[in-house]
């Protein structure tokens, strides 16, 4: 009996699907594939809800439990971890409807909106760091922006993950400052082509190959972004005098106009009196 190519393809596809026998989940469809494993949408029969189910290519370390305990509005909550009949580890998490950050940025959101997303990611990192967890693989593909603007950081790293090259710090051992590097790289990746030098300098400082020259933590990086948004001098950039004057002018434009108006009024009165 001959088997057609399409039947063979179908059999290969079915054979690759995870066997969820013995779990409370029912497989729906594949929604993503990455270095750590494959993500599927699945239905939780017990709670009658849709979840994201990630099947890993390696065993889960104890760190997964640590990550599962992270409770933050910008961290995708993990519902359950387990092992499939074939021995592969899996975990389920909230199914996020939205766009990956790289796709979201392709829609040309405003600079303020891009920075808002970075701030949410940075807050999630700062929170996780206080709990002793690090991400290890922060990149646009691991950040989702929901349809109502909510931001979620996903795929919190386990020990087996080495990070994505362009977002990975050149550190021998990954720690919080490695996440700061990745956050800087993330900021760099979302910035439009023409961007104020102060903002570019923030990303460059965060991505310094010298660990000591980076921001000490995610909060320090966010504080510098805040300073930029408020029109203040940023820690990452020693600005030239003309730039400082321009920033002062734009920051105090109303006050300068009012003072100019006062001077104009006084001059006018002086000339009216003279002539």
């Amino acid at each position: 009996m001959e088997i057609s190519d399409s039947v063979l393809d179908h059999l290969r596809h079915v054979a690759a699907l995870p066997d969820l026998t013995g779990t409370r989940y029912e497989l729906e469809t594949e929604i993503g594939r990455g270095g750590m494993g494959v993500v599927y949408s699945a239905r939780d029969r017990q709670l009658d809800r849709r979840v994201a189910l990630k099947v890993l290519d390696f065993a889960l370390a104890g760190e997964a439990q640590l990550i599962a305990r992270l409770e933050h509005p910008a961290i995708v909550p993990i519902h359950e971890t387990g092992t499939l009949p074939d021995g592969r580890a899996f975990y389920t998490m909230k199914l996020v409807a939205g766009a990956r950050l790289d796709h979201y940025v392709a829609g040309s959101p405003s600079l303020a909106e891009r920075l808002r997303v970075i701030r949410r990611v940075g807050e999630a990192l700062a929170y996780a760091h206080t709990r002793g967890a690090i991400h290890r693989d922060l990149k646009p593909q691991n950040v989702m922006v929901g349809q109502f603007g909510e931001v979620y950081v996903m795929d919190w790293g386990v020990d087996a993950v080495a990070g994505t090259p362009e977002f990975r710090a050149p550190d021998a051992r990954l720690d919080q400052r490695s996440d700061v590097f990745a956050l800087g790289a993330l900021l760099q990746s979302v910035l439009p082509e023409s961007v104020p030098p102060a903002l570019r300098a923030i990303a460059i400082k965060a991505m310094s190959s010298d660990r000591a020259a980076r921001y000490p933590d995610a909060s320090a990086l966010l504080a510098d972004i805040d300073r930029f948004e408020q029109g203040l001098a940023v820690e990452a950039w020693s600005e030239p005098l003309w730039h400082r004057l321009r920033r002062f002018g734009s920051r105090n434009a109303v006050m300068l106009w009012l003072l100019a108006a006062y001077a104009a009024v006084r001059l006018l009165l002086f000339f009216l009196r003279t002539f």
Partner: protein
Amino acid sequence: MNKILVGLLCGVILGAIDGATAWFYPEVRSMLTGIMVGSSIKGLIVGVLTGWFANKVQSTTWGVVVGSAFGLLFAFLVAAMSSVNGRHPYLEIMLPGFVVGAIVGFLTQRTGTQGPATKGAL
């Protein structure tokens, strides 16, 4: 520092500076001290009122509008009470008073902290 105090200080200082510009007018130079004191008191009243307004309304635009309105009003009252060579200097006092009021209104919106919220009914 609360906004009313900011308004008071800005009003007094800017009022005094505004009054000091009378030095450029030889015909009133002899009355410089009196003008400066009067101008400071006018600034004080305008500052307190705009500070009180800034406590109630958080809007730079409205702060400038209300500050300039108070500045104009009190400058009018001062000009109506003043007389130089039998003439009321409305233009000379009201025009700068209007702008100084606007500056005080702006400063009370941008600086200082809001006073304690009014206690609501339980």
